[in-house]
């Protein structure tokens, strides 16, 4: 059965985008080892609301199944906490012990401005996809699905890259705040499929340039992104992105 224990927290509180922020201390008793990290914060918020002295802590979440990509906590300096391949919502308190002190901060990057407390604005990711992260196909104009055979290994690898949930952990973990893993993953998904081939160059150049425009840094191969990615996406995506970008731009063709 579950143990019950006490956790100390230092949580980043910031009233708004242009307000100063600071770490505030809290103690949560009755933490149960089966709770997720976010459920532990829910319990803390219920305590804060009951006291009525300050506002509850704002943080983003939705599915709580590790798939929607909403949750985005920096837990003891690591995006999504200590467990590999895990979102904050799927991090369970059995990974902690009685009396532990945990620091909780938002994902920090110039391109992810803070909205309030632990909530940040990740709309830059949408704009990267907007710039070319799709196959241009109109509804109703598709040929029969089996008329485009795809080698199983190609489909499987494309799927591996397509699993990116857009949480932004890669950016938060990167010393340069680079979005290369996010952008590279979408390119590695679409660029290797026959359906994505016609727009390959155009897509690559547009997405890479949009990423720079958003204020994300460049990649210098720290590989911190791969280490924190909850979906285990390989940094090979970044190498592919660079190769495709070089090909597209050096070719001198109109893209």
């Amino acid at each position, binding site marked *: 059965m579950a143990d019950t224990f006490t956790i100390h927290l230092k949580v980043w509180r910031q009233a708004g985008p242009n307000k100063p922020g600071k770490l505030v201390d809290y103690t949560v008793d009755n933490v149960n080892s*089966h709770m997720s990290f976010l459920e532990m914060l829910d319990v803390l918020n219920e305590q804060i609301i009951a006291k009525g002295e300050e506002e509850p802590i704002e943080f983003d979440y*939705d*599915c709580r199944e590790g*798939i929607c990509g909403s949750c985005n906590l920096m837990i003891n300096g690591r995006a999504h906490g200590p467990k590999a391949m895990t979102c904050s919502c799927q991090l*369970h308190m059995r990974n902690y012990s009685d009396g532990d002190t945990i620091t909780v901060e938002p994902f920090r990057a110039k391109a992810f401005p803070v909205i309030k407390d632990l909530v940040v604005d990740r709309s830059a*990711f949408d704009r990267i996809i907007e710039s070319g992260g799709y196959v241009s196909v109109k509804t109703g104009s598709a040929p029969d699905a089996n008329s485009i055979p795809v080698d199983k290994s190609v489909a499987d690898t*494309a799927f591996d890259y397509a699993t990116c949930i857009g949480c932004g952990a890669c950016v938060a973990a990167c010393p340069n705040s680079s979005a290369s893993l996010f952008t590279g993953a979408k390119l590695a998904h679409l660029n290797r499929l026959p359906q994505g081939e016609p727009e390959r160059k155009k897509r690559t150049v547009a997405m890479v340039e949009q990423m720079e425009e958003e204020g994300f840094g460049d990649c210098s191969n720290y590989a911190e992104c791969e280490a924190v990615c909850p979906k285990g996406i390989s940094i090979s995506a970044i190498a592919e992105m660079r190769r495709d970008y070089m090909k597209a731009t050096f070719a001198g063709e109109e893209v």
Partner: protein
Amino acid sequence: MNLDSKVPSGPLEDKWSKHLNDIQLVSPNNKRNHDIIVVGTGLAGGSAAASLAELGYNVKSFCIQDSARRAHSIAAQGGINAAKNYPNDGDTIWRLFYDTIKGGDYRSRESNTYRLAQISNEIIDQAVAQGVPFAREYGGLLANRSFGGAQVSRTFYARGQTGQQLLLGAYQSMMRQVHKDKIEMHTRHEMLDLVVIDGKARGIVTRDLVSGEIERWMADAVVLASGGYGNAFYLSTNAKNSNVTAAWRCHKRGAGFANPCYVQIHPTCIPVSGDYQSKLTLMSESLRNDGRVWVPEEKDDDRHPNDIPEDERYYYLEEKYPAFGNLVPRDVASRNAKIVCDEGMGVGPTGRAVYLDFRDAIEREGRQTISEKYGNLFEMYENITGDNPYEEPMRIFPAVHYTMGGLWVDYNLQSNIPGLFVAGEANFSDHGANRLGASALMQGLSDGYFIIPYTVGNYIAQQDFGDVSKDHEAFDEAAANAQGQIDKLFEVDGDRSVVDFHRELGQIMWDKVGISRSEEGLKEAIKQIQELREEFWNNVRVPGEQSNYNKYLEFAGRVADFLELGELMAKDALHRDESAGCHLREEHQSEEGEALRNDEEYSYVAAWEFQGVNGELNEELHKEDLEFDFVELKQRSYK
């Protein structure tokens, strides 16, 4: 309330093509003069917004999440059905239609369900063309698997993340149109009211969830694709932010709410572990392809499952339903899990769980093969429970998953308010009293890609929209109404948290409006919900400010709506004095616990018209008779 279903005449197979021939078109150069609002960016809303924008309309898209990509369709795991018959196992459009009608216990509209089966094949083509990485065979062609309620392999899948991949396909199509300025995207916006002018839906009122600003948006048509209301139960497989507010506010403006009591209880969820719990996690139904469901034959057997010998295990689904075995539909699997647990054979610390065992499949096919099929699901299970499903059986229990009820729509997916269209889980139309696995994704995309774009055009072509602006008094009234409720929530300044109210509502709903229901229990539930609602409006505490990001204020508005909807769900369940699909009335069941329908008296859609709330929820019942011209109504049997 006018419940004209507008089903075209003629043979079932020809109704949709006949309708397409008959509907009016908007010429390409006129489409740019029309604005359409789409609320929600899941499979239905995302695909509708993208397709309408491709056609040339100006689309305004709204979602409550920080990105359109996070709509809850993302969490659907198992797959999407289509009648492609690629596996050559005898599937046809008719068979997919028939399975869906039967699976829904003959409480859905024949014509809509047939169209769903017809369109299913186009959806797969569309998704593949977008680059959705479906599972493939070694020859490069698409792979299929089977799902509950079907005897053919017609389910297309992308590992255990089919919903995610299909949603990203729709999202990417949307973002392409955002780039072309054909979609104006509004994230972190919640729809709080519908604006009806001269009897037509002409706009919405939203709250900017970051600034708190109440805003007005005008259009020629509104497409509501805001999902289901399973979170009325507090614990469910729905995302935490899934809610009924957009649909409920439309209901309060006159849109009929149909079959609200039809809630799907999904058989394969990770059991509840404690009262801090915020939601339940679904394990894909596809696991039942290879997992065998059993409980110990002995009551209160506390041995480790691996120590229980074969002849002391009760494989209740395989024994009771030899033809379908572990692949019986969801309502049957859920109800039987409840029955064995009620009889004391349940397992785990709470006794409210059954085993889903992969031992035999691993022996037969090898760990590698099983891992390729279900690896991510197994990891997820281990992460949540701390147990390894390769080494011991999973523990599962039913949980609230999907709502088949929703706003009433006609064949055009238009509600009884002209100009208000409703797509995906938010409408009631295709699944009857129970939804078969892998058909939610199918319906969302069918509605969004292939029905809404045509039927909205048909509506627009026939209207004279006149000279209306956002200063119209109906906009003033709706904006004041939205603001008024927020002010009222803060004024209460009570002692009890929003979550606490929601949890108590959920417990009432689960106990009395859940897997099985009785007249007595439903009457008690109605009374308890009324009392709880009264207390809510006298004792809720909403923290923080309204002109700022405030999650608990969002919740407060949604829980207020659930407290009204909950009463309607119980009322609907009470009036329907029969068992149908997921709606099991204890008074109407066979000795084996099978649902006993009453086709003579209840073969209709129950559409409720809002009349006001004054201590109790006042609703008037309207009936749309269901006509079955092409299938024979039979008792469902999976034996």
